[in-house]
């Protein structure tokens, strides 16, 4: 105990060396670490991936059919991991049940448990179940080994696959998707509200925050699907449906433009209104956040992929080169949005609420809130989604539903 306290004291003394200007004494140790950066990142990917799935289902964008099930499974895999960074950051993770037992009505964070449960159970699982029910019944008779009881269990004992029952499945799936779209907006808009509602922090406390979060979520979710679709096809040696890929590309470009506009609006408003916080925020953006904001988030994560995607609408040559370009764009966007979450979460804690100075953040390598943990938490949903693809998205189905273009 005393040793721990001494170690802390040394760390604080070290931090004090890096403080610029004046900060309130309690602001020395930056509180929300890289794990809280991942939380909105992962949640955003969930919401974005779901909205892509709903485009096919509700708005009848037929060219997106090849990625419908992939989107749903991706959304589920990332949703399962999304609360883990939060949990890992809690001082007392063993008390987390209190959020569900005595949720404080005025706290945006308290509603998390309910929004999460609603989205997981009333939207994702339910829609997947109605969509997969016929397959579960079929696979529970044809699959081999331990997979057979698994599929059987997933039918929940309902084995009716008559035409009437399947029609109901389809109808229910459509209704749930329609409910799902506002739910996806709610899920991520509310994550934005957690930050946007903090009036103590001028970097976070803006009404645009939920909107910015929703559009950045769509950007990242679409990019993720582009990435996963390409990787899955390449690994399985399935021909990439170029019509589908082009449509994803156009969606990504649209979302990027809207996202950029909303963020630009935020900055225009800040600069024009010029309240007492402007000076320190300009110092923050041009100083501590310079590389992560202008270079990674704006230039590499937004401008470069947007120009590249726009160029690909005009020049339509070389499907192989196009695939590579789309792949690079999706990666850049994914990194750019991660930088955006970093700039919001860490950036918002680097400056003092006295608006007179800055503290610093040192990302540790190991430890509960270290870099390795963060990498693990980013890789985990990809592992889960791989297992899900293996279990629920047979190769035969992918080739079956794709209308392949062979150049």
């Amino acid at each position, binding site marked *: 105990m005393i040793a721990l306290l001494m170690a802390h004291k040394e760390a604080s003394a070290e931090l004090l060396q890096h403080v610029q200007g004046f900060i309130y004494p309690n602001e020395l140790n930056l509180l929300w670490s890289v794990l809280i950066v991942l939380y909105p990142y992962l949640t955003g990917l969930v919401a974005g991936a779901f909205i892509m799935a709903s485009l096919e289902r509700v708005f009848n964008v037929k060219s997106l059919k090849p990625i419908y099930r992939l989107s749903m499974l991706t959304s589920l895999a990332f949703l399962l991991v999304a609360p883990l960074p939060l949990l890992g950051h809690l001082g007392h993770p063993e008390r987390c*049940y209190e959020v569900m037992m005595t949720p404080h009505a005025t706290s945006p964070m308290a509603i998390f448990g309910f929004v999460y449960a609603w989205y997981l159970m009333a939207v994702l699982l339910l829609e997947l179940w109605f969509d997969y029910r016929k397959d579960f019944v079929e696979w529970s008779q044809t699959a081999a080994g331990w997979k057979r009881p698994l599929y059987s269990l997933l039918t929940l004992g309902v084995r*009716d696959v008559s035409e009437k029952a399947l029609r109901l499945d389809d109808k229910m799936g459509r209704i749930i998707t329609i409910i799902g779209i506002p739910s996806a907006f709610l899920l991520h808009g509310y994550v934005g509200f957690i930050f946007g509602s903090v009036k103590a922090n001028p970097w976070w406390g803006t009404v645009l925050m939920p909107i910015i979060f929703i559009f950045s979520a769509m950007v990242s979710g679409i990019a993720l699907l582009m990435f996963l679709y390409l990787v899955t096809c390449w690994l399985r040696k399935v021909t990439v449906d170029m019509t589908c890929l082009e449509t994803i590309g156009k969606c990504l470009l649209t979302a990027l433009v809207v996202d950029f506009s909303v963020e630009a609006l935020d900055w225009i408003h800040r600069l024009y209104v010029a309240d007492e916080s402007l000076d320190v925020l300009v110092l923050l953006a041009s100083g501590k956040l310079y590389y992560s904001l202008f270079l990674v988030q704006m230039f590499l994560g937004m401008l470069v992929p947007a120009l590249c995607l726009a160029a690909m609408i005009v020049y339509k040559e070389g499907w192989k080169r196009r695939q590579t370009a789309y792949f690079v764009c999706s990666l850049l966007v994914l990194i750019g949005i991660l930088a955006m979450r970093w700039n919001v979460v860490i950036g918002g804690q680097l400056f003092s609420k006295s608006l007179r100075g800055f503290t610093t953040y040192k990302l540790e390598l190991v430890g509960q809130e270290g870099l390795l943990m963060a990498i693990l938490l980013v890789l985990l949903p990809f592992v889960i989604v791989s297992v899900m693809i293996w279990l629920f998205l047979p190769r035969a189905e992918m080739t079956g539903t794709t209308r392949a273009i062979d150049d």
Partner: protein
Amino acid sequence: MPPQITRLLLVTVAIVVAYFTARHFLVPASFGQYGWYRADALKDYQLLPINYAGQAACADCHEEVIKKRAKAKHRSIACETCHGPLYAHANDPTVKPAKVGNGNFCVRCHEAAPARPEKFPQVVLADHNPGQKCTECHAPHLPTEAP
């Protein structure tokens, strides 16, 4: 009713029942007495031990010091401002309080500094008998007199 819907309704009911059962057992007994919190937390706070005894406790035994100070500007200052936390001593006089400074404790308040109120008595240490201890000329409880 279609079998899918019946099955899902059953699952829903099971989840809701499980939630309210959990609530019944997991919400602390005094939660909600005054507001959205555990009212017993107030009692927990009241039971925390104290370290500073308070001026009244000092006056119980040290009347002569209080009397001496009555003439001094220092009369309104609590004993524990300079002598530190004394609850242990007040409870058991054999526990001796820590010694106050080494004769220069006065500078903590009386060293001249631009942020101090102008009318507050301050000395520039370099000009005011440098090298001497404050207590050589000033009795701490009645500083206008020599010890």
